[in-house]
């Protein structure tokens, strides 16, 4: 792995396998009474979140603490950013305090890549704009592997606002490297044709029923209203055509699992009964988030 973790696209399959295997080692720790290791004792991690986040920031923070590292979390509101300081100046200032790693989330695609070119400190991308969210794809893969022996040949439907989804991009790259069949589904305005060329094994459809047919995994995405600059579909029609309802699940494989990166909007991208459905693994994803991020932190700064 290079100095940090900027995206899944540039990772080799072996590197991903190593992280997923290590994350499995960390899974039991999550439920035992003594959860703290000292692998990263004396290391300092800065969580720099320029965009609101509850689960990812908390997950990184808990992962770091379980490895014995110290953490500082900064959100853009109330920081020097809101006083007009440029991103480079903010990061330079933080880098001068010699943390061992910066975990950053930013609304601009490529912001961590830009900083990685100008700073010597490892940067972990916790989501950049509509580009990538590498640790989400890793925890999704970990979760799938908890229910299936391998990723190869699995049929994975990713449904929703694909165009604006960093989760979708990272998952497409990861799943494709392992030979999964990926079906991307959404309205045409949220599903540009170029997505079909993003990686091998990707198929596009505008029909949710076709996407779900025979699926092993159904991954629902949040409708990113904050990233849409005008209505990409008629108001109120999203759930009708692209919301996941219980009756859809009959089309999938009998043991298909339902995933969602959260936060879920009940009644928008999936019905409430699907969210509570027994084969919904949304909370397993959250739990695996910590194990996977421990594995990533250990690789980057361990």
């Amino acid at each position, binding site marked *: 792995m290079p100095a940090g973790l900027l995206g899944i696209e540039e990772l080799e399959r072996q590197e991903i396998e190593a992280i997923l295997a290590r994350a499995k080692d960390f899974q039991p720790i999550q439920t035992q009474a003594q959860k703290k290791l000292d692998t990263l004792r004396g290391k300092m991690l800065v969580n720099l979140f320029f965009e609101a986040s509850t689960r990812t920031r908390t997950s990184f923070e808990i992962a770091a603490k379980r490895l014995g590292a110290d953490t500082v979390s900064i959100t853009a509101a109330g920081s020097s950013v809101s006083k007009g300081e440029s991103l480079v100046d903010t990061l330079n200032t933080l880098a001068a305090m010699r943390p061992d790693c910066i975990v950053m989330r930013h609304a601009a*695609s490529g*912001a961590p*890549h*830009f900083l990685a070119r100008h700073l010597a400190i490892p940067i972990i991308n916790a989501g950049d*704009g509509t580009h990538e969210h590498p640790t989400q794809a890793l925890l999704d893969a970990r979760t799938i592997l908890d229910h299936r022996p391998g990723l190869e040949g699995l049929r994975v439907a990713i449904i929703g606002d694909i165009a604006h989804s960093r989760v979708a991009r990272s998952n497409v790259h990861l799943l494709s490297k392992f030979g999964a069949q990926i079906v991307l589904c959404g309205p045409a305005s949220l599903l540009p044709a170029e*997505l079909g060329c993003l990686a091998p094994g990707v198929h596009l459809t505008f029909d949710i029923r076709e996407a779900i047919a025979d699926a092993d995994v159904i991954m629902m995405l949040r409708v990113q209203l904050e990233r849409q600059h005008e209505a990409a579909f008629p108001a109120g029609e999203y759930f009708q055509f692209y919301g996941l309802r219980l009756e859809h699940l009959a089309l999938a494989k009998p043991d298909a699992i339902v995933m969602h990166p959260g936060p879920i909007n009940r009644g928008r991208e999936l019905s409430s009964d699907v969210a509570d459905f027994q084969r919904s693994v949304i909370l397993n994803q959250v739990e695996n988030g910590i194990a996977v991020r421990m594995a990533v932190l250990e690789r980057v700064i361990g």
Partner: protein
Amino acid sequence: MAALLIQNGRVIDPASGRDGVADVLLEDGRVAAVGAGLSRLGAEVFDASGLVVAPGFIDMHVHLREPGIEHAETIESGSRAAAAGGYTSICAMPNTIPVNDSATVTNYIVERARRSAVVNVFPIGAITKNSAGEELAAIGSMIAAGVVAISDDGKPVMNARVMRRAMEFARSFDLPVIYHCEDLHLSAGGDMHEGLESTRLGLRGIPASSEDVMVARDILLAQATGARFHVAHLSTRNAVAMVAYARRQGLPVSCEATPHHFALTDRDMAPYDSNYKMKPPLREGADTTAVIEGIVSGVIDAIATDHAPHPGSEKMQEFERCPFGIIGLETALGLALERLVHSGRIGLGRLVELFTTGPARILRLERGTLGVGAPGDVTIFGTDFEWTYDVNQSFSKSRNTPFHGAKFRGGPVATVVGGAVVWRREG
């Protein structure tokens, strides 16, 4: 008066059809003679053996940033960069602060150029007041003050009715309307060409259609008004095809292409490197190919740089916050030689046309030729010496280029303006 005798170069003068070894004698700031074995007592002699001697290059699309944005570029620094790129004449786009939308600003630019520029500077006036796209600027008085064209470069006139009125008015003066073709609603928020690369990088796209629909609109308006219409920096295959169509209809439509639009595609962009961010954006392979085809076939009249300086601090930001534009005066000839001539697509004669008679004809400049009596503007360049572009040595005040470190075969060797050498390659 001083005289300059340029000896033994390969003189390429498309206006007269001359292409062969000859001497060029400049006297009193003008071309005095072109021929074999010239001599003139007391003349400074420039040995151009092994080099090409061409009429002075004209860049019809440059942002000089003065007045108002002098930390990015000044008329002086921009003119020095132009000279180092082999240019003897440059046209200054009006998007300064204030916008060049009145004779007052035009006069200021003309006067500043007279005092500080080392090459000829021809101002281009705004189409609308403050380039706001609403009310026509003082076009007539700007012409009297010296503008050679009008353009709201970078700020498209979205209202077709206003554009129609501008074309009608420009037609009365036989003035070309240079237009940055972009539908702002289609391109809104975009940072790079819309395609696989923008999808991959998660950056918002500027679709080719945002350029195409405006080229179409304005060709139709040019047809309706009879105005001379010039498409600035065209970059899409449809735009090239539509200009070719307009030509076949006999319409007075012309166009230019920038070196970056024939040299680079969106796939060449280093990830999130704002030195690759400009408008129109780097397009995809089929578009670049069409631009080159347009240059070869003659649909494209001129190469223009769209030299757009921005200080480093503005380019050192998140990609989506960085301004559009790159500098290009010093690399244009090197890129044209590399991508068009050495690759066998065009000959040197056609190359010289693109830098001289092409823009001169559009702007009705009495330049771009080595005819006796013409202004003594000469570009001397080599076609095979190797050099590497080091932007830190640039005469521009800005450093925003994707071509830092690029290696070239051939480039400018000396630039002569009004009979005097204003720049000469060192070493």
